[in-house]
């Protein structure tokens, strides 16, 4: 790119720095991508204009450029994240405004539902009534808090506190909507909502899948062979659990109704809960054990079984 940067800004080589700045401003106002969404040509022009100005707007760099020490191409701006790259994406974002079509609710018919859920009551004439914008917060709760529910307080940018009660059973990434706790409306319009996105920090050994809890439970060799009654932690406390005789690693036992409370449906008095699944993990002694080895040697002589039968012929 060996374009004449003065031509890009439409100024003469003798232009003062004020004139350069003024020319840049005029062009930037016309071509800024966020003021011309959808106009690719304007975006290209804006890139050229701003890289020309990075060079010509700086006395020292301009001098070097005039003396031919640097050329126009050496000064392309690194592609910084332009706002529209995020604001114009298909997914929603916190700054998105629906006030530009709030009155579509008045159109009636099928589309009033599509556009109208936030636009109700937009006044006609006079002061524009605008619904306040939604405000989005992130709130981190730990695993057990998410299971039992918790009350939290966050401080909003204006310094006001907002109490949030997180209901039991929310999972990572779910959002709460607090009606009317967002930005104030304009001209008597209703306030926006506060959207609280919940982040749940993982637990050391409980894993959540839907409303069920999964965990690995270590058992020792004698418990695996002889069976045992053992205690297992669940989210509601310790529960006793029967390990059947001859349980292998990987065996899954279910503790019914010891999982996460499901949302109550209408008329339901107590919440149904998911289940708690325990995957057994047989743990051998840390050090080799002479007695065990002696016994196993004897035992193996008379108990040859092929546990890998199913894998044969697979490859």
């Amino acid at each position, binding site marked *: 790119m060996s374009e004449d940067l003065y031509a890009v800004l439409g100024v003469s080589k003798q232009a003062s720095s004020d004139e350069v700045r003024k020319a840049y401003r005029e062009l930037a106002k016309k071509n800024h991508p966020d003021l011309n969404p959808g106009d690719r040509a304007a975006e290209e022009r804006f890139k050229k204009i701003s890289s020309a100005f990075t060079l010509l707007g700086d006395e020292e760099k301009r001098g070097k450029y005039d003396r031919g020490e640097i050329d126009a191409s050496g000064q392309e701006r690194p592609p910084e994240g332009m706002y529209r790259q995020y604001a114009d994406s298909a997914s929603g974002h916190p700054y998105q405004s*629906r006030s530009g079509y709030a009155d579509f609710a008045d159109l009636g018919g099928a589309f009033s539902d599509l556009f109208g859920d936030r636009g109700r009551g937009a006044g006609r004439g006079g002061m524009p009534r605008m619904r306040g914008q939604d405000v989005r917060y992130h709130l981190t709760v730990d695993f057990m808090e998410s299971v039992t529910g918790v009350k939290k307080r966050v401080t909003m940018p204006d310094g006001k506190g907002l109490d949030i009660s997180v209901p039991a059973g929310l999972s990572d990434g779910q959002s709460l909507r607090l009606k009317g706790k967002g930005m104030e409306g304009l001209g008597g319009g209703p306030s926006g909502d506060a959207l609280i996105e919940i982040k749940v920090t993982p637990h050391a050994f409980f894993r959540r899948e839907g409303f069920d809890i999964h965990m690995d439970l270590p058992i020792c060799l004698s418990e695996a062979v002889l069976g045992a009654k053992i205690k297992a932690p669940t989210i509601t406390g310790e529960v006793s659990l029967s390990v059947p005789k001859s349980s292998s690693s990987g065996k899954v036992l279910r503790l019914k109704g010891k999982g996460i409370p499901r949302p109550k449906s209408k008329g339901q008095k107590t919440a149904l809960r998911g289940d708690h699944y325990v995957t057994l993990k047989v743990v051998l002694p840390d050090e080799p054990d002479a007695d065990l080895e002696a016994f196993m040697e004897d035992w193996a002589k008379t108990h040859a079984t092929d546990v890998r039968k199913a894998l044969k012929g697979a490859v």
Partner: protein
Amino acid sequence: MWNEAQVLTLIADLDNVELQVWIEQGWVRPALNATSECIYDEIDVARLRLIGQLRRDLDIAEDMIPTVLSMIDQIYGLRRELRVLVQAIEAQPDDVRQNILEHIKKTRPDQ
């Protein structure tokens, strides 16, 4: 995700006093973490850059910024809704699309 100090190093010509003012004005609304510290997403950083460009490069007066931002937000909101509608129309059978096009022509005879 960046905290305030990181954002100030990312955007060279932004100082923390200005940043506080922009947040108090509600122009930028970063998320808050559990200890009520501001956490900035990519879109927040891009929006801070945009406001910087509006103020400095485009020389837009401070009291005009809310109006400009509100217009920009509305246009992106409209563009999103328009895109959803166009996609919905695209997904229709040919005759339905034809009807819609004819209706558009009727309501905009100048086009």
